[in-house]
């Protein structure tokens, strides 16, 4: 009897959901081992380390999802993740690798701050204010993404490094503003701008634990879902993403689609930045994002670029971020831990999908010979 590895013709449908779920569990497991090793280094014995690891996991996984305040935090974290992930997936669907979510988020935050504190500060209607600030954020994110978009469309410059470099530039730009010209004169040297006026703050629900942003994010997800399924953009962008030459052959302007994909992607991320300012931060500060733009990449991939799944996964990762905070506070574990987890999830995802490309075939050779 021979066992062979054979390439599959089609990836079975159940793999679509199974692989992401298993990847998360596998990543949690592996991270557990890493934590165990780390704790051994700290506490000396395996037993102590094991105990600490289990404790840490309990803290990390239960607080964000079962505790009332934890849950509120989770929803709060979910919003910027969802926005950026939805934005990124718009570009990823065409295999355009926008890694600049973080920078586009920062630019959206910057622009909405500019609007709230300077340009529109005299507007009294909250509805108008919020609308204007959202538009500011979206435009800023869009313009920030326009740079790599034009470079890619006209010079075939690869977007990965360009979008990534712009992340650093955006963060430094915000630093400049926040430590310099925009520093709150009454802030006691604290690196942040003056607070947003009341009308620039998003309305909240349930005793201030949810803000409007969560509904905007879900609405956006529904809109994108429809766009992908039922509009010619969705149809044509799939062609551009699968085979750009075929798209050109079909009379589809790859150049236009490329630019639009990146610009819209940036706009949505920028909108997320504005929403974060209006809903949670209420002022622009140094380092307000714990890497949402990068975590959003994983969220988009885990959600398989499906807007509805992305919302769900954002919730999950929002919780994990909150859990990570707990670990940092109580176990002195660095923020970098979430990076480890993200890397592991990605690898498990990739590995899982690769494994599903093959299957085992058992050859019953002896039976045939005997016939």
């Amino acid at each position, binding site marked *: 009897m021979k066992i062979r590895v054979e390439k599959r013709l089609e990836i079975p449908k159940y793999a679509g959901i199974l692989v992401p779920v298993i990847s998360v569990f596998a990543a949690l497991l592996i991270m557990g081992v890493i934590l165990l090793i780390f704790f051994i280094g700290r506490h000396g014995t395996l037993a102590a380390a094991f105990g600490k690891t289990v404790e840490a996991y309990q803290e990390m996984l239960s607080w964000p999802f079962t505790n009332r305040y934890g849950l509120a935090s989770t929803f709060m974290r979910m919003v910027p993740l969802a926005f950026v992930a939805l934005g990124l997936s718009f570009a990823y669907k065409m295999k355009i690798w926008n890694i600049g979510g973080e920078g586009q988020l920062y630019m959206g935050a910057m622009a909405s701050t500019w609007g709230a504190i300077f340009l529109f500060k005299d507007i009294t209607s909250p509805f108008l204010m919020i609308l204007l600030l959202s538009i500011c954020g979206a435009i800023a994110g869009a313009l920030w993404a326009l740079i790599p978009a034009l470079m890619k469309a006209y010079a075939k410059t690869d977007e990965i490094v360009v979008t990534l470099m712009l992340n650093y530039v955006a963060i430094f730009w915000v630093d400049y503003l926040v430590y310099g010209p925009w520093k709150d004169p009454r802030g006691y040297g604290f690196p942040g701008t003056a607070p947003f006026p009341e009308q620039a703050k998003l309305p909240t629900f349930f005793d201030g634990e949810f803000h409007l942003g969560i509904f905007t994010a879900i609405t956006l997800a529904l809109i994108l879902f429809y766009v992908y399924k039922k*509009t010619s953009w969705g149809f044509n962008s*799939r062609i551009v993403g699968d*085979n750009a*030459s075929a798209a050109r*052959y079909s009379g589809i302007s790859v150049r236009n689609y490329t630019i639009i994909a990146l610009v819209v992607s940036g706009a949505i991320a920028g909108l997320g930045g504005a929403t974060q300012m209006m809903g949670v931060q209420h002022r622009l500060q140094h380092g307000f994002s714990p890497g949402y733009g990068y975590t959003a990449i994983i969220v988009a991939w885990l959600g398989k670029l499906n807007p509805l799944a992305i919302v769900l996964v954002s919730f999950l990762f929002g919780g994990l971020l909150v859990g990570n905070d707990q670990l940092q506070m109580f176990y002195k574990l660095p923020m970098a831990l979430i990076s480890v987890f993200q890397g592991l999830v990605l690898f498990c995802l990739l590995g899982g999908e690769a494994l599903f490309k093959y299957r085992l075939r058992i050859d019953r050779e002896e039976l045939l010979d005997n016939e």
Partner: protein
Amino acid sequence: MISRGATWPLDFFSGVISLEDFPVLEMKNITKAFPGVVANEDVSIELRKGEVLALLGENGAGKTTLMNILFGIYHADKGEVSVNGKKTAITSPNNALKHGIGMVQQHFTLVPSFTVAENVVLGLKETGFVIKTKTVESKIKKLGDAYGLPVHPRARVWTLSVGERQRIEILKLLYTGANILILDEPTAVLTPQESEVLFKALRKLVSEGSSVIFISHKLDEVMEISDRITVLRNGKVVGTISKTETDRRGLVKLMVGRDLLVDTVKPEAQIGRPVLTVEDLSVKNDKGLLAVNNLSLEVRAGEILGIAGVAGNGQRELAESIYGLRKSLSGSVRLDGKLMRSGNVTSRIRSGLTYIPQDRKTIATCPNLSVMNNIFMKNSITRLVKSSSFNLDNKAMSARTEEMIKSFSISTPSSRTAVRYLSGGNLQKVVLARELAMNPKAIIAEHPTRGLDIGAMEFVYRSLLEQKSKGTAILLLAGELYEIFRLCDRVAVIFEGQIMGYTPPDPAFIEEIGLMMAGSMQEDSVHENQG
């Protein structure tokens, strides 16, 4: 100086046993399956010393797969290979070379940026830490001259013509002492004259004791060069026969299982006004060189104009620029008298021009998208199914797809299957379904039957003839001369981006066509620009 491998036992016994009957290679009961298809089923062949054995069969019959197994690229599921009577397991191309087996494939395996010499010694164990270029170069030159395959060892491969590159492939094998040579469709890329040079070299090699397996689907060549012929059909051997015992008709019967060489009667030509007019077109290729050089032609409604020529003489660039995928330097393209803007595909699709490219996988289809998505790929312009941009009528598209799958007999598990799982023939049917459904005014067809089996080829020919009878103008960039004679009303020959001359679609003109394909201008003014 050139090692010949383990043939000394044969040389020793040459006086005792008749050399010609000694099998230098045997493949026994070879079976190989891929997901969804059995490529070789219980195939056995035998190669004798000093002979040219032709492996004949339609596309998809399993010839290349079998040879890939012999050359170590694939592993057979069942069966064994014997070299010089000894059972051998060939695990890789390198391993095959060690046993003296070498293969020249359809797609060359040369590194374009390397020199000829570098390509020849690439991967060889004898090469030291630092490469001794001069020694290698002189050895290559000697080999080339010995067999009538001259090359410049210092030339960089990307500058060489296809014919010259093929010579390097052969020299690579001779350099390492291969004495069993496998050639996979070698004349596909050669002019008739270059093919003669190749055949001469092969005859010389064979007379010195090498053995050759010659894969082809061209009956005339097979009858000319081979000693024996093994015919494959649908992955099985249907017969092995000596050349002297058969003829073209007999071979066709074996290849196809039925008598096919019936001359189809071309429908009465109802030729109308010019639909596609090309004037003084000049186009650059990807390297920046002029590929199409002040070319003019005209195709009328209901006419099929065939362009004959060796691949690489500007056909691709011509097709692409007429269709708008490539900007032209100068000249004009008109459809029904309307001037088309250079590089604009959209307006051409709107005006009723379609393009069936040679490589259906690279630009005409999206491999991971479904049959339905591929059939409606151009729908935003062609509007086959009336559908608003903001509310796609997926149901209507799905229904129409099912219709087309039936009417074109596309074999696919469902309309949602990704097209990369379709066979070449069915993929081409998808392309045809899409292009013909829009009732085009003009079609550019570039080697539309490449890689298809006879059944699919017939289907393509029928579809084109059907369109012709509807009054469509068709520009056929032919891959096989056979297509020219079968389908066309006029024949033009292209060489280095220019039309060398026109002939009627009659096999009697084959010599003239061959000469034009190689660059001679047409002398007889009677034939110029007929029609």
